[in-house]
């Protein structure tokens, strides 16, 4: 841009009309980046940084500064009201070796991630494949299947879920028709987590829409060629659909995994803030919240936050590394 602009300027264009009103005020403020007079380097730098300034202030004060601070806090004993006391790596040591509740929270979260994400993606893919055809009323189906994803993060839905899976809730009413006397899902440590997994799976609409967009990209000719070669529907799925969809599976997998590790609202609402019954729904973030904001053990909570960042980073990295062996890009 600037090269062309300078050339134009050097070629001697007529000087611009005098600007009035807001335009003049703004240009007096920011300076012209082009026009008759070539901008001075200082001015264009100033304009760039003026536009960048909201983010720059936010980055320094709300991201970079806090990152450094929370790394330091994680090495201290600190309760918000007194000065932090440096304790080295003892918070991390306690986390990894001495805190059985932390281990429980980690186990609950890993169970949640490794069950909810694959189930959610499986349903998403199935429904996307059903929707990927010329169907009457496809818009209505898309809307209905997507709706839970839109509402699912809200406390209202978690409240509803808590009631549906209560002992006297709808699920047990239905089971009773079949003569099954269902348990109290929410207050039974064996089942409480599975209700939260189901709440996550219920929200498969958003990844399904991404799968659907990906399915529409697969050229029709590939299926025609496969069926001429005698491939049935099952083989077409394994040999054409699935390999060509792997880049999108990778994307959905990574996004859903990162989100699942940070899940907070459902466990908080369904367990009424306790992580119960018997710590069976004590999610990582819930335990972090409890330590940091109920007990004000800010140093310990900071250490937990950094271990979580490490876990998410490792899980993402491992997924990307293994993706070399299972993701196919079109041109390979």
């Amino acid at each position, binding site marked *: 841009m600037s090269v062309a602009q300078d050339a134009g300027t050097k070629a001697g264009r007529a000087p611009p009309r005098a600007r009035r009103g807001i335009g003049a005020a703004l240009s007096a403020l920011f300076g012209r980046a082009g026009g008759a007079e070539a901008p001075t380097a200082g001015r264009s730098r100033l304009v760039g940084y003026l536009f960048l300034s909201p983010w720059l202030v936010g980055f320094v004060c*709300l991201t970079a500064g806090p990152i450094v601070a929370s790394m330091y806090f994680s090495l201290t004993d600190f309760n918000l009201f007194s000065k932090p006391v440096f304790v080295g790596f003892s918070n991390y040591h306690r986390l990894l070796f001495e805190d059985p509740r932390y281990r429980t929270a980690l186990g609950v979260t890993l169970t949640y991630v490794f069950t909810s994400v694959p189930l959610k993606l499986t349903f998403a893919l199935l429904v996307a494949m059903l929707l990927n055809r010329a169907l009457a009323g496809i818009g209505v189906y898309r809307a209905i299947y997507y709706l839970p994803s839109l509402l699912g993060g*809200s406390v209202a839905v978690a409240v509803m879920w808590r009631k549906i899976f209560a002992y006297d809730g709808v699920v047990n009413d239905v089971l009773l028709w079949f003569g099954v006397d269902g348990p109290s899902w929410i207050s039974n440590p064996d089942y409480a987590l599975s209700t939260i997994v189901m709440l996550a799976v219920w929200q498969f609409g958003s990844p399904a829409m991404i799968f659907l967009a990906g399915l529409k990209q697969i050229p029709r000719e590939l299926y025609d060629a496969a069926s001429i070669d005698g491939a049935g529907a099952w083989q077409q799925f394994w040999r054409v659909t699935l390999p060509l969809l792997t880049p999108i599976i990778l994307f959905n997998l990574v996004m859903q995994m990162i989100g699942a590790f940070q899940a907070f609202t459902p466990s908080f609402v369904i367990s009424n803030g306790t992580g119960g019954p018997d710590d069976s729904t004590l999610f990582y973030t819930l335990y972090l919240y409890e330590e940091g904001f109920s007990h004000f053990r800010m140093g310990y909570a900071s250490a937990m936050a950094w271990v979580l960042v490490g876990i998410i980073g490792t899980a993402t990295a491992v997924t990307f590394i293994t993706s070399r062996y299972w993701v196919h890009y079109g041109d390979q």
Partner: protein
Amino acid sequence: MATSDDDRVNLPATLAETGRIVLRSLAPHLILIAGALLMIYPLIWLFSSSFKSPAEIFSGNGLLPSRIQFDNYVTGWQGTAVSFGRFMTNSLVISVLAVIGNTFACSVVAFAFARLDFPLKKLWFALMMGTIMLPHHATLIPQYMLFFNLGWLNTFLPLVVPKFLAVDAFFIFLMIQFIRGIPRELDEAALVDGASMALIYAKIIFPLMRPALVATAIFTFIWTYEDFLSPLVYLTEISLYTVPQGLRLMMSTTGQGSWGPLLAMSFVSLIPLFVIFLFFQKRLIDGIATSGLKG
């Protein structure tokens, strides 16, 4: 293959054959309708239960209320100490301010990255992209300390000011991609006419970015409106509570008998989201499908 197709068209179809064809075209619909019913059943249950008397909600006597009564809505809206209307107002004020902050700040910053040259631009861009994936928890505690020391606890500022500082880097990225698609000839023509960069942003780029701004506005509204963790941390006065906190308060303070008002207010709290869904449904789904925004 072609001949057998022709034969089939020409022969009068037998009854069994017609049945098979009808079934084949109906089967996906049957599966999809059954699935759709299962998906929205919880929401229908929530809606219909909100009109039932407390005793009837858990009696298991079918989906429809025996008598439609609005007591749950009246009781729930009145609340105990603070009206539910207060929570709704708080949530809507915070969400609208967040939308204004995000659309304005992110578009200004995206303009800088997409159209302006300045020193260290590549470094800032890389750092900005790096923050997209950073979990909120890594910065939560120092941010809390910062706002605590500024005396901002129990104000809306910790929930709103970060949006005016463009911390949601994903939207900046979305907008940069969008601005890159706007022909540079437009700003160059304006430059030749002597327009300043501020004028080019305000008069050319901002109006042309409408689709990206709308997407940002919708998702910012939904995420802010549903956000539970931040209000939980920053707002402890009941009169400042947002809708999620209000529901949680009702849930923890009401006994088993008063689920009716809680379910009624849960439904009320979803109404703004239903309205957005009705108006922007296509844009929402397209936004997710093309940019991978999480719903």
